[in-house]
């Protein structure tokens, strides 16, 4: 088999390819469910029900989607510029740490200022954290994949130190958690008696902003140009270094806001289980969306549904909820391959 570039890509293929990849992922994971000894259709039924079956289930799915939109955007924006930011997890915690620092009493503003302020602070922290590996990449050609990955561990250990040490809330009965965010900074709930909060609206808002920025602004154009062909972009007079730095601030900033979203919307205070790997899952979200900021909204809801559904499924039929991770990873790999078949035509010799 050999691959030939397509001269013309039919529109339907752009949608059919990733959708069939996701269908194939479900099919492959059915094998695992069968191996676990559960009826496949009933298991997928429980998954669907747990994800969308009731107002509460739907609200839980959307609650989980909010931080995934942020981390998915972070990955999408960076990958667009071929900046391999795998440090979303660390940037998320950096954002949450910074928001905890200013949001637990240091700064007091009325709610309509306090919430944007927290997002800004979180974004700054996340952006600055990514700036370090990116400067190393630009100045010394140090590979950013490894440095961003390693920084995840450093930031998490730093948070661990703060929560077991100076930031430990004496009122938390010995649990490692920081003092709560002041009331003015808490994201308001959207539906009564659910955990869904206005972080979702912020996430969608930033997704639209990111889309408009990438699509219509000069800087957004430069990001796309640098990602598609850095040599050509350089010849066209686009400042490579500055563009990559801007991308880094944007990408790290979005990941940092994911931390603020979870902190101010869901938990109310910083803990070490603030994120069950949202930073890493964001990569899958971005790839499933074809790195399109608006697509990120849909794919974040889809991935959140898988995780929530898998939780419900594991309660109903004792299948480990690590199945959600398997499904996400399988979908990620298959979508990656499917995108190739959009651009290339497989030909049998």
């Amino acid at each position: 088999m050999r691959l030939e570039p397509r001269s013309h890509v039919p529109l339907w293929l752009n949608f059919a390819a990733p959708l069939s990849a996701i269908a194939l992922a479900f099919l492959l994971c059915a094998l695992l469910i069968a191996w676990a000894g559960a009826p496949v259709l009933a298991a997928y039924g429980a998954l669907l029900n747990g994800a969308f079956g009731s107002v509460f289930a739907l609200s839980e799915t959307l609650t989980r989607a909010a931080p995934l939109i942020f981390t998915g955007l972070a990955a999408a924006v960076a990958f667009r510029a071929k900046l391999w930011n795998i440090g979303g997890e660390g940037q998320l915690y950096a954002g949450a740490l910074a928001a905890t620092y200013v949001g637990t009493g240091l700064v007091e503003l009325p709610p309509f200022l306090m919430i944007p302020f927290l997002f800004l602070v979180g974004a700054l922290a996340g952006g600055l954290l990514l700036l370090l590996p990116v400067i190393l990449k630009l100045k010394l050609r140090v590979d950013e994949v490894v440095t961003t990955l390693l920084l995840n561990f450093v930031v998490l250990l730093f948070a661990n130190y703060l929560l077991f040490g100076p930031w430990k809330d004496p009122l938390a009965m010995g649990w490692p958690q920081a003092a709560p965010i002041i009331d003015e900074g808490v994201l308001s709930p959207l539906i009564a008696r659910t955990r869904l909060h206005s972080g979702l609206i912020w996430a969608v808002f930033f997704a639209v902003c990111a889309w408009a920025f990438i699509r219509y602004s000069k800087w957004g154009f430069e990001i796309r140009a640098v990602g598609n062909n850095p040599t050509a972009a350089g010849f066209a007079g686009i400042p490579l270094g500055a563009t990559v730095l801007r991308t880094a601030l944007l990408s790290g900033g979005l990941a940092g806001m994911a931390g603020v979203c979870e902190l101010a919307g869901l938990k109310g205070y910083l803990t070490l289980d603030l994120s069950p790997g949202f930073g890493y899952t964001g990569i899958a979200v971005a790839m499933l969306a074809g790195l399109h900021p608006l697509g990120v909204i849909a794919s974040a809801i889809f991935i959140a549904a898988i995780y929530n559904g898998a939780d419900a499924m594991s309660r109903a039929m004792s299948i480990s909820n690590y199945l959600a991770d398997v499904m996400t990873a399988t979908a990620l790999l298959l979508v990656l391959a499917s995108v190739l078949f959009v651009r290339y035509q497989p030909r049998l010799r």
Partner: protein
Amino acid sequence: MDILEIFVSLGFWAALVRMATPLIFGTLGELICERAGVLNLGIEGIMTMGAMVAWMWVYQGGDLWTAVLVAAVFGALFGLLHSGFSVYLGVSQHVTGIGITLLASALSYFAFRMLLPDVTTPPKIDPFKPYPIPGLSELPFLGEVLFTQSPLTYLAFFLVPVVGYGLYRTPLGLALRMVGENPMAVEAQGIDVHRLRTAAVMLGSAFMAVGGAFLTISVFDAFYIGMINGRGWICVALVIFASWRPGKALLGALLFAAFEALQIRVQQSASAFIPYQFFLMMPYVLSILAMIVMSRRAAYPKALLVPFRKGER
């Protein structure tokens, strides 16, 4: 305990050699992949998979050496999967690698949970015992440090010159290095680029999996979630630190193991002044520093990250 006291203690040096073992396996494995032009970021997940299957094999009543083999086979299979995407389809090696890591670790945890559904404390196995080499283990100091180790540690140290010899002194090694520098030249020699790269990634991944297996069936006697804990990523940094040379990879692994061994011992004595979390950060911070220090001299294989498609420039 004083720093000096640590340096003269036999236990420290023996721990150093022990802790270097998974890093040696992982770094050699990553090095083989990268020399062939494929960055294998699946390492973290492949190590997890190796750790899980080897442990599970022994737990189900299998033999220790067969467990090593099983881990290697599983590693090679994930290497095959990796190259299916990164070599044959030629899609992004970064995303493929992250995908493989997510998949391999998720599958490991899933299988572990499904095979042992109702255990709360991790069950234990009988791991490899230190095997004193007759004669050599009687040597003062060196005997205890180098020659009273797990058989897998001897294997790791033995593999360093083997990989070095294979890469630099055999026709296959020459072809493997060439496919990482100039795949077109390899193609011109009538060698199948895709097959050669796939073979390299499979071999490298087998090494990584054995490195993971060492943790569960030699150092510890149990498997638990998140036990690889970034060791795979450290190996990726070590390959850069080693400038893609097996000898230097050994040096780097030993250096890092020294810090790990030192960190545990200093932590116990100095934690009154410095919180232990900062000691735990050391390997990661050091990896970044090592990459910065070596960055000016980093001579990447020229075709690293570049997919090869026949007839395409």
